[in-house]
Structure formats: C-alpha cells, structure tokens
C-alpha cells in the first residue's frame, strides 16, 4: 500500500497537503516504470504551477516524460539536491524524493486517494 496521507494523479504524481502548502513528487511505480533515470528538470522557486499542467521533465535511458502538477500555486521550495541524486527516487520516492513545495491556490479535480491509486496500478498491470 502506498502512503494514504496524500493524493495521486493517474499520471503517477502525488501531493501531500499540510496547511496551505502541498509537497509534490512522483510515485515509486513511476520511478520503476521509467527505470535508469538520467535527468530531472525542476522549476525555480517563485514560478507558478497549474494543476494538470507539466511543471518539470524527467528523463530515463528510454524516454523523456513530463511531470504533471497535482496542484496550482506558487513554488516556495525546490528539492535542489534531487537532480544530482536521482538514486534517491529509487530508494525513497515518497519522502526524500519530494520535488517541489507549492503554496496552494487550488488542486486538480482528478486526484485519487491511495486506495483508488492502488486499483489503477492493478488495472495497469493486467
């Protein structure tokens, strides 16, 4: 079971809300599906993100993928160490592998709880 203190997008990003701030990352499933990560591009502090729109790019040996934002708002903190330590995503996608913190102005209407996300992963595995 994935952490149930946060919500998920079907494109495998998560967001965890505490007060007026959401922490955003990607799930262990996304990390394992991408495999062999080589590059991560994250936005700068102060930039705006929009729910359902890409806020970054992640590249693996196989392909380049957009990372979609589960929430809207202003980026207030960025995990600057992460692009140079992509192994962190392999070992701890849900905590140390967080990507950005956003001062919330809204969130996607398509967010799922952990149970629904598990169902989605089961369906994708079949």
């Amino acid at each position: 079971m994935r952490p149930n203190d946060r919500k998920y997008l079907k494109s495998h990003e998560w967001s965890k809300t505490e007060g007026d701030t959401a922490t955003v990352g990607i799930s262990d499933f996304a990390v394992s599906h991408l495999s062999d990560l080589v590059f991560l591009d994250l936005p700068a502090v102060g930039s705006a993100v929009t729910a359902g729109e890409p806020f970054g790019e992640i590249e693996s040996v196989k392909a380049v993928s957009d990372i979609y934002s589960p929430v809207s708002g202003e980026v207030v903190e960025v995990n600057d160490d992460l692009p140079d330590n992509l192994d962190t995503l392999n070992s701890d996608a849900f905590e140390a592998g967080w990507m950005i913190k956003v001062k919330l102005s809204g969130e996607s209407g398509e967010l799922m709880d952990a149970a629904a996300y598990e169902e989605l992963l089961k369906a994708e595995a079949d």
Partner: protein
Amino acid sequence: MKQTVLHSVHESLGARMVDFAGWSMPVQYRSIIDEAKLVRERAGLFDLGHMGRVRICGPDAEAFLQKLQTNDASKIAPGRIRYAMILNADGLTQDDILVYREPADDGFFLVINAGNSDRDLGIMRETAKGFANVEVIDQTEELGMIAIQGPLSQKITSELTDINLGELKYYAWARGNICGFEGAMSRTGYTGEDGFEFYLSQEATLATWQKLLELGAGDGLLPCGLGARDILRLEAGMPLYGHEIDESTTPYDAGLDFAVKLTHDFTGRAALEAQRAAGETRRKLVGITSSERRVPRQGYSLHVGDKEIGKVCSGGASPTLGLNIATGYLPLEFAEPGTEITFATRSGQVPATVVPLPFYKRER
C-alpha cells in the same frame, strides 16, 4: 499482436513487453544499462523471434538473389553469410538483410527486419516471377530465433552442440545437432560482441533457451531485452532500419558501400551508378557524443550556432562509454571529427561533439 514461442517465458520473468513491428517483445527484464553491461562483460540471451526468416531454394536461387539484393551472391561460399540491401529502382533502401548460403549449397536463407518483412516478401514474390525455378518460403512461423551475445558466448555454448564452434568463423553458419535437435546456428549478432544466433524449430528454440540459461548460470548469463540490444548495436555503429537507413537513403549515403557490389544486375543498380558518377555525397553519417545528462534522441535537431544542420537518427545513453551517443547525417563541412555542435531539447541546446563511427569496437 504476434507472439514468439518464448512469450510466456518472458512474462514469467517479469519482462516489460512492448509492441515491436506487430510483435509483443521484451524490451527489458531488468535495467537496460545493466543488461547492456552484461553483454559487454559476460553474455546475454536474446529472443529474436520477430525477425523475418526466409528460405530461398531451387535452381534459380542464386540468379534470383542477384536481382533481389546488392551483394554478390555468387561470391558467398557455402556456409558463409553476407550483409546486403534490398533497394527500389531509385536505389533507395527497402531493407537491410543477411544472406546465408546453405552449408550444403542447396539454396539460401535470409534474415530480414520484422518491420519490413511483409514488404520484403512482396518484393521477393514479385522478383521471383522473373525466374522459372525459384521458391520463396517464409519460415518465420516455422522457426524460432534466439541469440547469445558476449565474450563468454562460446564457452557457454560449447556443450550445447556437436558443431565445432572454434572453427565457426565470424559471419559463417552451420547445421548440426543443437540441444538434441537438428538446427542451424551462425556466428553473427547485432551487439558488437562475439556470439551466436540460432535458427531452430519452435520446440527446439524453447529447449535451447532454457538449456543455455542452465549452461550459462555460472557465468552470469541472463536474458536481455531489445532495449539493451538497441544501445549495443548503436555503440557498435550498426545501422537500424528506420533510423540510419530508410526509404530516403541509398547505401552510399549511409557509408554502406561494402554491402554493394556492382558486379550484377540488382534492382536499383542504375540509380547507384548514377549517384556514384555524379560524385561524392553531400552528407555523411557521423557519430555524436555528449557528456551532458540530456540524451539525444531520434528526431532531435542538430545545430552549429543558429544553423540547423541535421537530425538525430538514433541516440541513447552508452553504458560502455559512459557518454550519451547518437548518429546523424551532417553536411560534409560539419562532418569532421572534433566539430563542436549542439542538439536541441525542449529546454535548450546541449553541447556535443562529432566523432568517427563506430563508438565501440571489441578487441579480437
């Protein structure tokens, strides 16, 4: 989607399966980088059941092949293999193929690309109409095809067969007892390493796959997917249809002159002679390396300053070189090794350098 005889084996190994030219094929079992390293350092096992396999026989088999393809079939000795092209009348590449003369000299065998096999078979059947006694037999469903690739291939394979592997030369093949079945194997591959490819009945393909994994367990042999095969062939500078070569390239454009012998009247010959008479080509297929993180990928544009000078044909992260590598056609003035260029990603230009091909050549 079509499945090879090993499909359920791949699934039980947890392979990630993808659609490749209408076949469900394993792209990776583990990390692509780990699989590619395994082939360079030890050995890997590949399912190549998607490749097209065609037997050509009858008294006109050689004459038919002289019309069909660019290499000189009359110069292929029994038990030997040559790389060749099928062209259209304009000299443009329809496929790149391997031509095998039967060890007993009773016909030929062709291995063709999965994505082109329907078109190739159409061209073959049309070409065959010009000959009284030639038979084109599609054996893709009847036979399986697997490969072992890597420096330990011969050691692992020696107990599998009564064929003398020490005497089986590069680009040669033999028929014999393989894993208890009558079958054929060649010393060929698409990775730049030593290794063998097997052409066996479906039943024998499955048995040989399992037996090789058993024989190679102590040497680290593991199944490897098409993802590793693609980066290995790119490191070795081997062209892939749809990337370095396609319907817009002639063999001369791609620097594949060695596959063309102007000794016989093959389809497309006149166009190649005209290209040769017109003088040197205006562009050249080159290697490109980059030590940045971004991976150059097929279709990315290549630049010098503000000028777009070409596009990436193939690109990937090379585990052997520890660099990102790519191929592309560049105008001759930019094709000199050492030329500094860039490739464009969505987030900007990335520095890269023109280098000679291949990127990797094994020591023999």
